[in-house]
């Protein structure tokens, strides 16, 4: 385990090396290595039970790793001082605040146990404004809807203005519109300089992140940018071409021989194909020229961004194939 004085110098607020956590015989997290750059939104994506929460618990100091090393804000989380803890915000997966207290009282409670100054009225109001609960501050938390509870929890997580936020499935079980709103909040927080480590089961939310870690069966398959994930899943970027004429077999063979084209051309129908390229923006003019050379008139040519669900499924399939 790293010494608490062993500061990470490259600007990563989280640096985990070969983190493993076992519960008896069960391996919950297996040799996880990742870095979270300061000021980024790091999406931690994977299906339920894949080890996301266990990882968050190791990063927040709730669980001690069975093996491996981790520093968060330059310190070993299991040896966090009070001041270190004050720099961290943690949104737990379930609603854990007090249903018998009002929105305001819950927020006030959270502020007190984080030791926030008693002159905090304006700050708390601002937070409620941020999560759009200002008009509901006298409502009992138990009477709030699921989405409002999540927003209250988020406000309570930010009450002490932490540097680093661990948000464990903040969007679980809420409607797509509200989910979108949450990601708007997260972007605002990022703009204010916070670093966010967000776990989610919604693969589509990867698009909002700067970096995405894909977790599957306790293993971190990869850490990539959202675009990088697509490339990894499909071997490059996808360009779809629709022509006026029939695309023959020899036309497809000739296109496949181009240096920037990877893998086989995928046939959609007689006049439509998908081509995997290194980089769509530079490849498209060259593909137009190549098609002209083949005597094909291009009706449309566009970059296809496959949904992250497909990306995720492709990556998992590849992982399973490798296994």
């Amino acid at each position, binding site marked *: 385990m790293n010494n608490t004085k062993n500061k990470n110098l490259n600007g990563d607020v989280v640096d985990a090396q070969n983190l493993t956590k076992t519960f008896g015989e069960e391996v919950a997290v297996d040799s996880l290595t990742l870095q979270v750059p300061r000021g980024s939104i790091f999406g931690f994506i994977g299906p339920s039970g894949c080890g996301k929460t266990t990882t968050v618990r190791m990063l927040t100091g709730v669980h001690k790793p069975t093996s491996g090393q981790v520093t968060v804000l330059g310190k070993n989380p299991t040896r966090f001082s009070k001041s270190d*803890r*004050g720099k961290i915000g*943690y949104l737990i997966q379930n609603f854990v605040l007090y249903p018998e207290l009002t929105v305001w009282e819950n927020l006030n409670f959270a502020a007190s146990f984080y030791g926030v100054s008693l002159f905090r009225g304006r700050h708390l109001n601002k937070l409620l404004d941020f999560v759009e609960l200002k008009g509901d501050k006298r409502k009992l938390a138990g009477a709030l809807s699921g989405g409002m509870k999540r927003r209250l929890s988020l406000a309570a997580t930010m009450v002490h203005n932490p540097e680093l936020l661990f948000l464990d499935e903040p969007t679980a079980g809420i409607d797509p519109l509200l989910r979108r709103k949450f990601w708007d909040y997260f972007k605002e927080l990022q703009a204010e300089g916070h670093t966010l480590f967000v776990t989610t089961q919604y693969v589509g939310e990867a698009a909002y992140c700067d970096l995405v870690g894909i977790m599957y069966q306790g293993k971190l398959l990869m850490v990539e940018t959202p675009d990088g994930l697509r490339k990894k899943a499909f071997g490059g970027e996808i360009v779809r071409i629709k022509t006026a004429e029939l695309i023959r077999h020899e036309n497809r063979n000739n296109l496949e021989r181009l240096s920037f084209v990877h893998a086989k051309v995928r046939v959609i129908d007689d006049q439509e194909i998908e081509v995997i390229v290194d980089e769509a923006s530079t490849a498209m003019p060259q593909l137009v020229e190549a098609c002209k050379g083949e005597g094909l008139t291009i009706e449309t040519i566009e970059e296809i961004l496959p949904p992250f669900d497909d990306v995720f499924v492709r990556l998992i399939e590849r992982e399973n194939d490798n296994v």
Partner: protein
Amino acid sequence: MFKFLIRISSFISKELTEILRQPRLILTLVLGPFLVMFLFGLGYPEQNRVLRTTYLAEDPSSLQGDMKVITETNNPALVNQGVESNKELALAKLALNQTDLVIEIPRDALETVRNNEQAKFVVYHNEVDPFQIAYIQSVARIYVDEANGRLLQSVTEQGQAEAGSVQTSLESAIERTRRLKQAIPPGDSEAATQVNDLEKDLTTAHDQLSTFRSLGSSVLVNPFNADTTSLSNIIFTPTEFFAPAVIVLLLQHLSITFASLSIVRERRSGIMELFKVAPITAFETLIGKFLSYLLFEMLLAGVITALAVWVLKVPMFGRWEEYVLAVVILLFTSLAVGFLISLISDTDTQAVQYSMLLLLASIFFSGFFLDLRLMWEPMKVLAWSLPATYGIQMLQNIMLRGASVPPLLLQGLALIGVGLFLVNWLLLRRRMEVQYS
């Protein structure tokens, strides 16, 4: 230091708000005990139970004359329901709860006594409660003592009447002896001495008989009596006597119940995970919770005491500052017991069960209604491990005797409280620290 105060204030305000948000609960907590004590006073106005008594005599006419005098009683605990000659009928009445006692009068009682044998009264009852059985045994003993006394009194009165004629005979014997003395020839000194001695003996016997006749028959039969006087010179009603113990038991139970649910609920809700990550320590959490409940319970104790003293007129002979000190230490220790339950319980139900078990133990072992002096010595260890035992002793001392609290009681209770606080702190620290497995 300032942040420490802010952190503990979070729990004080949170716990108090949660409780105050339930006005019906508060009303129940304040009025409930008051109502219990008030109804208790109404329900038990008499100190002794009156027993409806049926006398069983095969021949009711045998209860006339001397026997009537012997069997009649002035004992207020016995209410005469008449004489029954059929034993089966009398016992059936007893079984049907139409009478409380059947006293079987011994057949030919006086004859039996004259034949130098004891005549036995048989007292039938239908009780299962050992305390009621003991009460009936005591009443039966008093009844038989009374009957024995009456018989002796009657015999004594008869003896005194007979002593009158003996005395007259003695007077004439003394007169004759005097005349005999005058008739003795001078010089016969031996005869004179013997007559003098005889006269002296007869006079002594006469004087003793005079004394015997001059004494009342009741004094002769019961020469000694006993009066009991309390140092405080006050006889308390059951409500007055039980009020301090009820206050103690209630405060202990409320403290234990509130505290026992407090941490276990937070553990189950999952917020403890947040506490682990937040900059709050187990000590701050525990202090915050202790202070919040202590404040609330002190308020509650104040209202209950005020109602008991000024509405129910429960006596308060001691000093208020001692009362407050005793109650605060009782509440602190009870809360410590409650938090211990909370930390070792896995569910709310378990915590409630432990609290109820403790209440039951306190009712039986704290001296609430059974005197601790009756308890088997080794069991007293259990009794003195309950905060209520100390509380009842202290409050009875202060309120009913007007005496100071023995320092040992205060110190013992405080020691248990502080010890449990430390245990709670260690347990909560373990719960709030990093999980290794």
